């Protein structure tokens, strides 16, 4: 076990890479789908070994408390999503929305995406991290466009252009960080390694760091989907295949957030810089309130939940912007909970869209009558995402709000306002979807409910009882974040 966990990082990266190569050449979607599940499963296992012991950090790879959380979450949701997508995609094939070649491409891309995300999480090198995130972004661009419909292509294109601009900004920020580090750490790879950066951060030129952070915040913030850089997100979610929407909302946003957090940590080491907190708080609040209002007018169910993702990313960014052990803890918790819940919701939505043959909210009615399990699952998911007790997100939101009240009541007002607005919107929509006169087909959904239920169960459990070790671990990470 020790040997294994010592090389876990290698496995976490190698398995998806190999999987991608293999799936790219293998024909026959059933086999590839199963293989896909298998590979993600293996990745999850090797990620889990990280808990028991961690490899020493190298020039390129780094494992610490912070990214273990992300990696494991990533691997887990990636796994469940692959389970979901196996059945989902099969259905897509039956309905002829996809063809086998595309499917092969899809699975290969899925692995590439996992690889990219894991790499960027584990990267000890800001350049490597950048490359990895861009890799992940480009793969998702292709996946979003996979349906080749007019709207899908358009969404992909939008995503692509905005994404690339984000890429450019992020790169510029990265370069500036290097420029700041180079005089202190000396030229070469060393001054791009996180370990060194954090070590010597205090001696860097604050002005440069400020500049860098602005660009990084905007660049990676585009990926996180913070308003006003969010524009790609709703369409990408709405037009792409649902598993991808789930991965986007549940994981890619986190990965980008992880990058931002890393740089925030860097900023925290230096005394001279102007605090990154206010910027993050502002953007977080803007995204939260903006998204909350946007929720009202949505006609497309997936797009609606995409906006809700923006909203929650806003909350999380806000929490991390607030900083302090409690807020950070809450932020981490919220991020985890949101990943689980939102992907579960997207699973549910995927089933719904398949059975009803539409994503238009207006045409989905009375779900609890036509599909009780699905309907109630969605209810549970939305209740969770709206932050009602006794589910997990309630806990994190409560912590965020209360810590904000304790620290800075004025900020709490817009926060609570946004939360309430979003709450109203979600329930307004949910009401029609779930209750109301049943409409649409009552066909049974083929895809497996298992992932969805697993996620919701986890969220519920977390809301009622969090295991002590986990709490301790998160608190430890929160301290790390400063």
């Amino acid at each position, binding site marked *: 076990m020790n040997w294994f966990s010592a090389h876990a990082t290698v496995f976490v990266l190698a398995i998806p890479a190999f999987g991608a190569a293999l799936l790219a050449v293998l024909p026959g979607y059933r086999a590839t789908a199963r293989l896909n599940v298998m590979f993600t499963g293996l990745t999850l296992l090797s990620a889990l070994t990280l808990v028991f012991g961690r490899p020493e950090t190298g020039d390129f790879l780094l494992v610490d408390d912070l990214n273990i959380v992300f990696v494991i979450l990533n691997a887990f949701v990636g796994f469940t999503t692959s389970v979901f997508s196996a059945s989902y995609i099969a259905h897509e094939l039956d309905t002829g929305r996809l063809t086998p070649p595309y499917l092969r491409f899809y699975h290969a891309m899925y692995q590439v995406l996992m690889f990219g995300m894991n790499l960027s999480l584990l990267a000890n090198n800001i350049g490597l991290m950048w490359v990895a995130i861009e890799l992940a972004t480009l793969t998702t661009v292709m996946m979003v466009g996979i349906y080749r419909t007019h709207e899908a292509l358009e969404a992909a294109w939008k995503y692509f*252009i905005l994404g690339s601009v984000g890429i450019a900004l992020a790169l510029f920020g990265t370069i500036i960080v290097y420029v700041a580090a180079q005089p202190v750490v000396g030229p070469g790879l060393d001054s791009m390694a996180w370990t060194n950066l954090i070590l010597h951060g205090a001696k860097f030129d604050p002005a440069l760091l400020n500049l860098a952070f*602005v660009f990084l915040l*905007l660049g990676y913030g585009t990926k996180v989907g913070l308003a006003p850089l969010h*524009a790609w997100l709703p369409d990408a979610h709405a037009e792409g295949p649902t598993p991808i929407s789930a991965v986007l909302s549940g994981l890619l946003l986190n990965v980008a957030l992880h990058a931002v957090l890393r740089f925030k940590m860097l900023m925290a080491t230096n005394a001279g810089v102007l605090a990154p907190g206010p910027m993050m708080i502002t953007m977080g609040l803007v995204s939260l309130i903006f998204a909350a209002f946007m929720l009202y007018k949505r006609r497309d169910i997936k797009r609606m939940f995409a906006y809700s993702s923006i909203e929650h990313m806003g909350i999380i960014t806000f929490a991390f912007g607030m900083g302090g052990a409690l807020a950070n803890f809450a932020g981490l918790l919220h991020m985890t909970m949101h990943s689980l819940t939102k992907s579960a919701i997207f699973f549910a939505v995927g089933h719904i869209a398949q059975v009803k043959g539409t994503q238009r909210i207006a045409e989905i009615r009375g779900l609890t009558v036509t599909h009780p399990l699905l309907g109630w699952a969605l209810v549970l998911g939305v209740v969770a995402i709206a932050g009602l007790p*006794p589910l997990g997100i309630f806990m994190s939101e409560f912590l965020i709000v209360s810590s904000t009240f304790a620290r800075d009541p004025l900020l709490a007002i817009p926060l609570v306002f946004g939360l309430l607005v979003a709450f109203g919107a979600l329930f307004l929509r949910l009401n029609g979807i779930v209750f109301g006169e049943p409409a649409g087909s009552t066909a049974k959904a083929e895809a497996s409910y298992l992932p969805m239920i697993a996620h919701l169960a986890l969220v519920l459990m977390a*809301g*009622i009882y969090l295991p002590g070790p986990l709490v301790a671990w998160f608190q430890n990470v929160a301290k790390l974040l400063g």
Partner: protein
Amino acid sequence: MLAGITTVLGVLYALMEHDLKRLLAYHTVENIGIIFIGLGLALAFRANAMQWAAALALTAALFHVLNHMLFKSLLFFGAGAVLTATGERDMEHLGGLIHRMPKTAFTFLVACAAISALPPLNGFVSEWLTFQAILVSPQLPQWVLKFLVPAVGAMLALAAALAATCFVKAFGITFLGRPRSPAAAEAKEVDRWSLGAMFVVAALCMLFGILPGLVIDALAPAVQMLAGARLPVQAEVRWWSIVPIAESHSSYNGLLVFLFSAMSALLAAALIHRFASRRFRRAPAWDCGFPDPQPATQYTASSFAQPIRRVFGTHVFAARETVDMPAPGEMRPARLDVRLRDLIWDRLYAPVAVGVEYTARRLNVLQFLTIRRYLTLVFFSLIILLVVLAIWR
């Protein structure tokens, strides 16, 4: 505070409602209000670093969430049963169901008692806890809170009492009295399964009411998480009573109360049946000497609510009662029509709704921009941040 208002209004509208299910829906509003009172208090306490008080308030809130889940689902079951049995949702057309579907009636009664916060059922416990939480609130430093909290408490009490009224109405009009429509007259008891479900839930209601300590302990970890403190362990308090703060301060023992009432009721019954005449005879209702066989003469839901409507009506609902009596000799029925325009909705919620709607529409434009415009957004946010950077020092 807002929570308080919502609470009272929710129950008031519920009171004015004939439609059984809509009535229940309004009550959900009320209960959410109660929950939010708890949460609000918890926040306030927490902000002032009064962990134990926060724990108390939070426990109350969570407990109420749990209870609400229980009895509200039970009520909805009942309503559903009535609906399936009679196909009627308007209470004005129901009545006398207790004869046709006694079991449903029983569970529904339990639920009603629970939601009206009557001991020894679970609804009372959570409300009691909330009251206790309110009672520790004078130790809050903020003056505003000092004045708000008692008001909220008053509202909570008012809401509880009104809830009782409301459910007396709901149960009384629906299940008691004489059937007001043929549908109600030949209702059938619902199938065994749904009955079973209802009984299970009802049993849970009772259990949680009688042994609340267990629930509180179960909630403790979550509370610990959120409030940073927890209530004292209730399990080893003597005779399963619950003691949120200190025994001298306040305690409640569902078990004893339950046993007491049960015992004394049985005792009384036993005595009576032992010594008193056990004879009784069925006879038409006396009704002060002028009985009227027509069911229509019964008290109806709206007439039941009438006094309340009179009391709160003019302020809250802008209720307009227009009685037009036929002139003597004129052959037409007298009619009383009641028009409720709920002011609060018009004055308070409607503007908010409109505002949200407006903002949403305005912002919604952003959904339809061209990529170039989105880029412009990015560009400008970048510029703004840079300028901030530039002028910082």
